[in-house]
């Protein structure tokens, strides 16, 4: 690096450093983003129901399924400990799920869930573990008393991201 620029046509050292650092930074960030983009399927924590329909995992392979618990689909089977429900995705794809065990507190119909388990040949997902997925909305209990119309209006205003 030249400390003095004799002709004036060359960059000052300060600017040379700036250009070098900015170029390095741009290359670095681009590389990081490309790597992250390439990982976008592998790094996903779970399958959505539509992903499971279009590109199903191998039968018996341990995977995770995430989506919404369909309203009105949750029921307890005859043995009294196994529950069955449907998980819906962003379109109208549905995966039936079975689970025996204790569910987390936040596991309710109409809210998000991540099920760890395996897909069976008949298309049922058998879960060994359930995780409740909170959505991005934070609403005090008092607001539940609102009329349905008000609640819908509020939800409309506050919905971001999926759903």
């Amino acid at each position, binding site marked *: 690096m030249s400390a003095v620029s004799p002709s004036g046509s060359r960059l000052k050292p300060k600017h040379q450093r700036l250009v070098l650092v900015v170029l390095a930074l741009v290359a670095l960030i681009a590389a990081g983003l490309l790597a992250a983009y390439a990982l976008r399927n592998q790094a996903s924590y779970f399958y959505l129901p539509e992903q499971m329909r279009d590109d199903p995992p191998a039968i018996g392979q341990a995977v995770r399924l995430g989506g919404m618990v369909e309203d009105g689909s949750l029921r307890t089977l005859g043995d009294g400990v196994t529950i069955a429900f449907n998980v819906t995705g962003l379109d109208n794809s549905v995966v039936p799920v079975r689970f025996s065990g204790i569910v987390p507190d936040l596991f309710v119909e109409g809210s998000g869930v991540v099920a760890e388990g395996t897909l069976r040949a008949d298309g049922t997902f058998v879960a060994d573990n359930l995780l409740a997925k909170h959505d991005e909305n*934070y609403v005090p209990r008092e607001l539940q008393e609102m009329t349905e119309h008000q609640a819908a209006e509020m939800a409309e205003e*506050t919905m971001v991201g999926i759903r």
Partner: protein
Amino acid sequence: MHGFANPKRFLSLATWLTPLLLVGGLLIAGGALAWGLLFVPPDRLMGETVRILFLHVPAAWLGMGGWTAIAISSLAFLVWRHPLAALAARAAAVPGAAFTAICLATGSIWGRPTWGTWWVWDGRLTSMLVLLFLFFAYIALAQAAEREGVSERIPAIFGLLGAVNIPIINRSVVWWNSLHQPPSLTMGKSAIDAAFLVPLLFAVLGFSLLFGGVVLARMRALLADRQAEARLRRKAMEAPAFGQVRGVS
């Protein structure tokens, strides 16, 4: 910016700004925490556990903000050779690491009742853990630069390199299916009800002021260390006999 390159001018500003930020930050953060812990109504689904929001979110914000400060200071140091920039980056590392650790701990405690698990290896949680390790590595490198005479440019380059992780943390919940929920606060939109949002914003403001105060205080301490060392060295030069007996530690 180079107006503050002179440590004397920086110190005269930092002398009154440091206590102002520390006291103001403590008052606002403490008030917001008390508000959030005692007076905010419980959440529709999560109930009382929603209160951890008021510590978790400011900690996450300052963990990422801490590294952003390191990256910007490192850029200023590498390009403009700004003498205080390396100091600022060093000063931001420890509080940044502390807030990242608080964010991970509170998130884990929150995850148990909410999700049903302490920890999962999803995109958001993993990238935040990587940030904590980056902080540890940066602190080790900066100490090596100070004590063992390694070039100060090495931690600065590492500070810039690690900045790649910040947009990854931010976007992790959007790019990948994740157990962590998508962002609640996006440009001009909030999915957080005002009853939670107002104390949350005060908590973020209060902890940010506190963070600024800690960084300034640490910068002053680092400067004082450096001056004391320079003075010792000068004394040793002036009185060789004294210098030889006491040594230059």
